[in-house]
């Protein structure tokens, strides 16, 4: 089909690389920390390159209709499992790899050493995330969710202390129940439609009889419950702030990505299955998503105002971000969706940076070294993670203040950074689209949504400012903390990325508009997946065609 058939295998690499590296790292002794870190870093950097390559290929017409299809084990769809990369999947892969790289470098000096098997679990988490973004099969999605969750259970408990084990137990119990709901939803969808391939489902939804479409919608609702538990929609998101605050900072930064997986899964399944092709079921449940998203916004804003410490505040920030996205998906406007995706990228980068930053700002306060004590006992780790060695950076307070301000601007959506651009274009799209339909007035729900987004922005800036004032201006005898280069650099890189995102907003928006446009054409998606030919061995030499 193409001049370079091996390029096709790039699609499976984001799953394979972390799987192999994670497995290889398990038997390596914990004392060989540098080696483990090196492997992990190489693998994550490679994933980043693959993600960039996939993004370019998806955007530059490498594949017909800009959708790359990989038939795992060469079984044609819908019989085998299919991996699909389109613009949205490539974007999410890139976001994951970027944040993973930053988090990994951040955790090099200190956090990866407070427990065992950090690097393997990190790789398996990446495998689960990447797989969930790539797969086109609902049951395969379940498997990747479980891989991701199993790794996250280990990571939440990483650096085993009392607080982590308490919240970890609740986190795991909730997610196990959510997994059961996922399975029930998948089973119902299979019973109704006879397929679990999302692309195949797209073509079959419209032809279902009344009873079967009823069963399908019940299944989709239960499935959505499982997704929205991950995506922390109110009232399914109560587990989130406690877990985020208790997890170690690098892990919390990765958990920010995991809430986005829930939102991504909702977006992917709803756009494909309940899109324009779906007949009577077209647009099913979108109102519920919008109302749920708005309730989540309110819950997040109130929680953010009420929380005192940075970790919980960041958790509520993630809830606000999910709420905005869900409400935008519920609007199902292409322009609004592009703005929502822009918001997703910016807010995820900023939230991840913020999670890591909070830990550094806490060093300004008198040292509370009690945190590591339990870990040492539990794992009988002899050598304490050496505190201030390595290259320190000068003017650490100025750095912390600036990075904090940058993150706060993006999270609350204040000008001039990407959060503001995202919200502004979102409002523009919401108001403009309604006017374009020939409807004179904007629906009251849309006004309500806009008001809520503005108000949550206000709540976010109030609580972040309060935290900033308390940390930087009012903490009395302020000692500049010793920050290491490897801890400051990833945060700086993520904040700079947010700035780049604002400066290059035009180019990014063009890409995201194409993404939203592609998502809306669910018929193209199913056609590409279902007509992908399996590879036949060429005559004579067994090479791929």
């Amino acid at each position, binding site marked *: 089909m193409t001049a370079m058939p091996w390029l096709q295998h790039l699609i499976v690499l984001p799953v394979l690389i972390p799987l192999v590296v994670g497995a290889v790292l398990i038997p390596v002794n914990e004392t060989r920390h540098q080696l483990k870190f090196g492997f992990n870093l190489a693998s994550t950097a490679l994933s980043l390159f693959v993600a960039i390559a996939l993004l370019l290929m998806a955007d530059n017409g490498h594949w017909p209709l800009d959708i790359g299809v990989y038939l795992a084990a060469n079984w044609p769809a819908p019989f085998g499992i299919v991996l699909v990369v389109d613009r949205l999947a490539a974007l999410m892969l890139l976001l994951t790899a970027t944040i993973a790289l930053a988090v990994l470098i951040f955790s090099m000096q200190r956090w990866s050493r407070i427990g065992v098997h950090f690097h393997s679990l990190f790789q398996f988490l990446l495998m689960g995330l990447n797989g969930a973004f790539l797969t086109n099969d609902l*049951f395969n999605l*379940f*498997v990747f969710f*479980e891989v991701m*969750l*199993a790794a996250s*259970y*280990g990571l939440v*408990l990483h650096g*085993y202390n*009392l607080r982590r*084990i*308490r919240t*970890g*137990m*609740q986190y*795991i*119990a909730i997610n*196990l*129940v959510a*997994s*059961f709901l996922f*399975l*029930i939803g*998948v*089973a*119902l969808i*299979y*019973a109704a439609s006879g397929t*679990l391939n999302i692309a195949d489902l797209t073509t079959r939804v419209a032809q279902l009889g009344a009873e079967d479409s009823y069963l399908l919608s019940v299944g989709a609702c239960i499935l959505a419950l499982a997704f929205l538990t991950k995506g922390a929609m109110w009232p399914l998101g109560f587990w989130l702030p406690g877990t985020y605050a208790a997890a170690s900072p690098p892990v919390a930064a990765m958990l920010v990505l995991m809430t986005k997986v829930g939102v991504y899964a909702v977006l992917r399944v709803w756009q494909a299955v309940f899109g324009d092709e779906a007949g009577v079921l077209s647009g099913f449940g979108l109102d519920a998503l919008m109302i749920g998203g708005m309730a989540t916004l309110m819950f997040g804003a109130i929680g953010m105002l009420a929380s005192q410490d940075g970790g919980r505040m960041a958790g509520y920030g993630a809830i606000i971000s999910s709420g905005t996205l869900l409400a935008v998906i519920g609007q199902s406007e292409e322009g609004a969706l592009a703005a929502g995706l822009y918001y997703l990228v910016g807010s995820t980068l900023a939230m991840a940076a913020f999670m890591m930053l909070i830990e550094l700002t806490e060093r300004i306060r008198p040292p509370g070294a009690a945190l590591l004590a*339990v870990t040492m006992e*539990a794992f009988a780790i002899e050598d304490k993670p050496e505190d201030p060695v390595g290259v320190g950076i000068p003017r650490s307070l100025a750095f912390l203040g600036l990075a904090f301000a940058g993150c706060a601007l993006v999270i609350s959506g204040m000008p001039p950074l990407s959060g503001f651009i995202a919200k502004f274009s979102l409002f523009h799209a919401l108001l403009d689209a309604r006017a374009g339909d020939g409807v004179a007035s904007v629906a009251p729900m849309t006004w309500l949504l806009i008001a809520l987004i503005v108000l949550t922005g206000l709540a976010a800036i109030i609580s972040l400012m309060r935290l900033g004032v308390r940390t930087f201006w009012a903490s009395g005898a302020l000692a500049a903390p010793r920050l290491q280069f490897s801890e400051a650099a990833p945060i700086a890189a993520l904040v700079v990325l947010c700035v780049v995102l604002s400066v290059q907003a035009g180019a990014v928006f063009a890409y995201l508009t194409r993404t939203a446009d592609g998502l809306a054409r669910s018929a193209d998606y199913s056609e590409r997946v279902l007509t992908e030919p399996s590879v036949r061995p060429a005559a004579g030499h067994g090479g791929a065609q």
Partner: protein
Amino acid sequence: MELVIAISVGIVFGAGVWLILRPRTFQLITGLMLMSYAVNLFIFAMGRLWVNQPPITPVAGIDPTQFADPLPQALVLTAIVIGFATTALYLVIMIGARGLTGSDHVDGEEPRE
């Protein structure tokens, strides 16, 4: 047969839901296990109930309605394996929590009287 299966799945799942709302970790894990059994039976039943039918179509050109659906069986197998692994993981954490907190309450501390 359908009615019997449906009612028993419902009873097992209901018992599981009741148990996971209890405050002790042992009750919680028993509830999770019951729920996972119920879910597995449910997936199995979603391939329709068959008696004495071979699951896989041996040759092309025959009537597929005469054969049991093999896919839910494969799904159930995967779900069992994953459920088993996560339950085992949860047991480890339960034991860890019991050791660290000295309590088997899910909050890690005994409720105040």
